[in-house]
């Protein structure tokens, strides 16, 4: 008989009060000709069943690399994970053999990508691609698997699923393709779903449809959802808690209501001030000055210091740890109190 993921990992529950998924002090480097790119520098976060964690960051912040490390889909080399743990129900995934890892990938932890068109194979029908999940991992017959594929397409609300199951990816619109991707990712009832910019390429009305679908699926199955995005609006809409990343580190984490009410890191504050809003017409936008850092050559001390309006001397020399503000909040700024107070004026 085929080894299933249950043989590799303990069944539901795990050890003690371990969270569903815990990333602990993860480091990822890329060894390139130009030098060592420190993409992730000590990231820690957890996700509980039914919880939505939003990982917010700009390009180069390391948010996608962290997700790829969780999935085990980084190209190694050039990527290297020198330090850290990724615990799924208490089992460190990084210590598993590649063979055992494949039982976790896709079955227990699944991922959806930004670009659904390039993630789907253009020469196979979508039905074939969805049913492949069942044939390969569940050993189902072709017709059985196809039936399950239609069910799944129904579940992600693709109209006329029965007919469209034989269509090819290019025959679907962008939103429908993203639904197909979601169908594939939830086919094996994963416990953690990582969504990497799932709606960035989509129009707002379609984006709303997809986010609603994800929320519904999550309610039904109590998946832990990691939503990777740069969009502060989407985060505010769906997240339970947020981890803000900058230059490969988490600079602030907090429950979603707290962070929007009063950010505790100047970068978060700058982001919130710099976005225009549909519900009000502001004056000039606040612009964070400067550019995102060069990962080949990170600034000393706090990586945000060259762009920070509150910079003091020790910011240039000492890298701030993630200070604990409360049980659920942290900020990697020496002056988080000032940032918080400034907001509460």
């Amino acid at each position: 008989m085929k080894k299933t993921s249950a043989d590799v990992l303990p069944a539901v529950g795990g050890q003690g009060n371990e969270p569903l998924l815990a990333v602990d002090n993860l480091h990822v480097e890329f060894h390139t000709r130009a030098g060592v790119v420190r993409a992730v520098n000590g990231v820690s976060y957890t996700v509980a069943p039914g919880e939505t964690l939003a990982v917010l960051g700009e390009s180069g912040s390391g948010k996608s690399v962290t997700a790829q490390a969780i999935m085990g889909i980084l190209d190694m080399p050039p990527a290297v994970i020198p330090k850290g743990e990724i615990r799924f129900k208490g089992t460190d995934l990084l210590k598993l053999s590649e063979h055992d890892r494949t039982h976790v990938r896709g079955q227990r932890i699944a991922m959806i990508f930004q670009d659904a068109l390039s993630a789907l194979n253009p020469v196979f029908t979508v039905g074939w691609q969805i049913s492949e999940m069942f044939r390969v991992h569940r050993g189902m017959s072709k017709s059985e698997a196809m039936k399950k594929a239609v069910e799944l397409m129904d579940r992600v609300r693709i109209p006329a699923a029965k007919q469209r199951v034989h269509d090819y990816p290019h025959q679907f619109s962008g939103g429908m393709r993203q639904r197909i991707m979601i169908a594939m990712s939830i086919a094996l009832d994963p416990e953690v779903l990582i969504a990497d910019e799932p709606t960035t390429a989509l129009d707002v009305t379609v984006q709303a449809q997809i986010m609603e679908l994800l929320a519904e699926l999550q309610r039904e199955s109590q998946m832990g959802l990691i939503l990777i995005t740069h969009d502060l609006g989407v985060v505010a809409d769906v997240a339970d808690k947020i981890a803000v990343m900058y230059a490969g580190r988490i600079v602030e984490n907090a429950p979603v209501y707290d962070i929007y009410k009063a950010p505790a890191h100047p970068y978060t504050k700058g982001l919130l001030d710099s976005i225009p809003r549909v519900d009000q017409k502001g004056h000039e936008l606040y612009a964070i000055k400067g550019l995102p850092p060069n990962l080949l050559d990170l600034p000393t001390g706090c990586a945000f210091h060259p762009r920070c309006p509150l910079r003091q001397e020790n910011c240039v020399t000492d890298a701030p740890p993630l200070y604990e503000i409360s049980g659920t909040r942290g900020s990697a700024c020496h002056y988080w109190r000032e940032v918080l107070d400034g907001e509460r004026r």
Partner: protein
Amino acid sequence: MSNPTPPVGPGLPETQTMVSDTVTAPAPERQGRHAKKSGKPASLWTDAWYDLRRRPTFIISMIIIVVLLVMSIWPSLFTSIDPFNARSCDLATARQGPSAGHVFGRDNLGCDLYARTVYGARNSIVIGVLTTVLTTVIGGLLGIIAGYRSGIVDTVASRITEIFFAIPSILGALLIAATFRGQYNSILLVIIALSVLGWPMVYRIMRAAVITAKSQDFVVAAKALGAGSGRIMFRHLLPNSLASVIVVGTINLGNFIAAEAALSFLGVGVQSPDISWGLMIADARNRFLEAPLPLVIPAVFLSITVLAFIMLGDAVRDALDPKLR
């Protein structure tokens, strides 16, 4: 907002190299290859030339090419023996090994191998270089026009090249060379025959590269500025399509020199008493096992020539890509 670099890949996910914007950011600056002052205007070509002069591959290949050119123009500078003088050959010494005064030994007819190789350079290099230039200019020009214009121009040009592609090139060249044999200089005939059949390859490469470049936004931007077809083709499309054409061109150069050998062997190329490397290789084949040098020496010269041009092509291609400087 979308990530301009693909998120997954072997390179650097989510990374881009940045140079500081001095107005807004004091981040350390990654110095380019030379500190450019804003005083003198730079352009792709002046920068490429500046860059080339510092590339070892360019310097080495240019030294080899210059030596070869001098050799083809003034072969007597390299040898005091005149291979066209019948008295310089002696059948009794045929296939003799290297000796004093005859560094590479003698060939099947007892002629000095070194002298013949030096005098053979002219025809081989003239054929190789001129054919490459002709095919690149014809194929490149037609390719850029067809790729840019598309529509009926493209359809007609592409169908014509397909006809040329259908002709086996040696057979076609043989036909052309045989038909006009005697009416023209045999070297010229070889060049024309090889060019007529060689340009469609360059055409295809150029056309494909232009079609890729054409869809980029900077071409639309140029049109919006009111740029004419000539400017778009030669300022925007050409520099962005040149790389693959240069690679193909330099590889073709070796093929053309070799093809000349095949034509000579078939009796329509360069004919004795003229000398070319191809002809020498063809002549030496039968006795290769007894005397390898008469074949090996011109073959080595041919390889060095081709290698030098390929190195030159690579250096030029890299110099024309600002990202690689």
